[in-house]
């Protein structure tokens, strides 16, 4: 089985969110970038398929050279090869077009993406890759088994979950549940050394048109201070009369 894990290079959750150039660009100054958490659950599940079922695992990212450390980290965790599509990621659709092209050319059986990236929260790339390549698609995937050409997946839905069966080629939008938090791997020294010599292919973009364009960013107005009360009666009154929440 050939697996492609799509890796989004995102600011760490604890990053300060600021914008520059007249609020048109995200300010990367002092920001630590990481593998998107939802993608990391998928990458870790891919490692299981590699170790238990002999799968080959490639990782891909759309971005400039500054995203390579994130790909190297995925290689250090255990991916076999990395692909960087050398263009600035502008919107979800354009990213999906790049990755769909890689997925088609590489003949992958399984493409794993995350439910959403924690930066732009688009949540559209995996579904678009599926539709562009004609693969089956399961979103908010919290469990995945593959036997030959058949896959069984568990999907989270509003108010519960459901078990689905489908066939390869398959694209999933994964999240926690594919593996647990405690299964996530921190690259060890051996992994980091090996990652240095693993192939990292740079490919040029196929079609860089986009359907949507972010014009400007805005930060929410600063929140007022918390109102502290010292008894439940005041709290109930405030929630009823002031907040109109009960």
């Amino acid at each position, binding site marked *: 089985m050939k697996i492609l894990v799509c890796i989004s290079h995102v600011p760490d959750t604890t990053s300060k969110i600021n914008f520059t150039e007249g609020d048109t660009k995200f300010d990367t100054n002092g920001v630590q970038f990481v593998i998107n958490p939802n993608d990391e659950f998928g990458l870790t599940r891919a490692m299981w398929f590699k170790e238990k079922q002999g799968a080959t695992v490639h990782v891909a990212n759309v971005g400039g050279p500054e995203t390579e450390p994130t790909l190297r980290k995925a290689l250090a965790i255990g991916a076999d090869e990395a692909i960087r599509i050398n263009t600035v990621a502008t919107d979800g659709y354009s990213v999906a077009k790049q990755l769909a092209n890689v997925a088609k050319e590489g003949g992958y059986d399984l493409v794993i993406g995350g439910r959403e990236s924690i930066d732009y*929260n688009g*949540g*559209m790339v995996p579904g678009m890759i599926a539709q562009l390549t004609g693969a089956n698609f399961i979103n908010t995937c919290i469990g995945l088994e593959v036997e030959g050409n058949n896959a069984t997946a568990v999907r989270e839905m509003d108010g519960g979950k459901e078990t689905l069966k489908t066939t390869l080629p398959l694209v999933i939008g994964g999240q926690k549940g594919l593996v647990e938090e405690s299964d996530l791997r921190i690259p060890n020294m051996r992994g980091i050394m090996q990652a240095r010599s693993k192939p990292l292919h740079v490919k040029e973009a196929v079609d860089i048109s986009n359907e949507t364009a972010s014009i400007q*960013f*805005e*930060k929410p107005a600063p929140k007022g201070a918390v109102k502290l009360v010292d008894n439940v009666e005041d*709290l109930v009154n405030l929630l009823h009369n002031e*907040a109109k929440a009960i």
Partner: protein
Amino acid sequence: MSVLVYTESDGGKFKKIAQEAVSYAKGIADMLGTNVTAVAINAENVSELGAFGASKVLELSNDSLKNFNAEAYASIVAEAAKKENAQVVVLTSSINSKFIAPLLAVKLDAGYVPNVVSLPESASPFKVKHSVFSNKAFSHTEIKTDTKIVGLAKNAFGVKEHNTTATTEAFSPEISSGNVEVVSVDKATDKITIADAEIVVSGGRGLKGPENWGMIEELASVLGAATACSKPVSDMGWRPHSEHVGQTGKPVASNLYIAIGISGAIQHLAGINSSKVKVVINNDPEAPFFKAADYGIVGDAFEIVPQLIEKLKEFKSQNA
């Protein structure tokens, strides 16, 4: 020309988010000088959508669509959009809407923006405001394609009443059902879901153990709320994963979010901060949650929560 809205239902009844989506679609239709057409799959009394601004409802009843099927549903909405010559397609931020949206965007070659928080700022260019960075910022984004897809954030626009009379029309498009089949569904039908709840009561590590969740459940039941928990609580197995809210868990966009014994790690706040009113009860005055909350009580949850339950019961009996 029209604005098309996909209306979600459960057991034949429209969800509140469907009413909100129709209200929002009507707002866009007024801007564009056109009408709203809704698509309803296996829903009853579909003409009631007129009360939220729909002029026409395309109605589909089909037993093979009883279980949600993203490919099939996306193909139905795509066919409806083509038939109605829709300029804008409105979806919500539900799990199912977010499953359909990317498939639909490719089928219609349409630009898609999720988590939209208000009516478009302008119709031409078509510019919408949507939340990014887990509600820590907004982006003003232009959708450049002829057909536009917007996913409305929950509780962002509200349900608005209209006096439109909706005509209904049986709709039977060609459906591509794909190759994903439901084997089994595991859904609690007697509990309010986190996605649908107006109020969410959430417990954290401060509750010391799963045996202490009785008061959380009682508080939720008095308020008609859903129960939720922080990540450590689900990681330790005190509560099921399905209750975990936060960045890697479920998002919460309720009217009222009550956090009990939750310190307020940034990953937790990222998942809940689009809730309108946030209340924190914690014995540590330094807990970061106090910076994110609207109301707070510093104190022992084991004393305060039972008092709160009693007070709310009294309040409910007086305001019933």
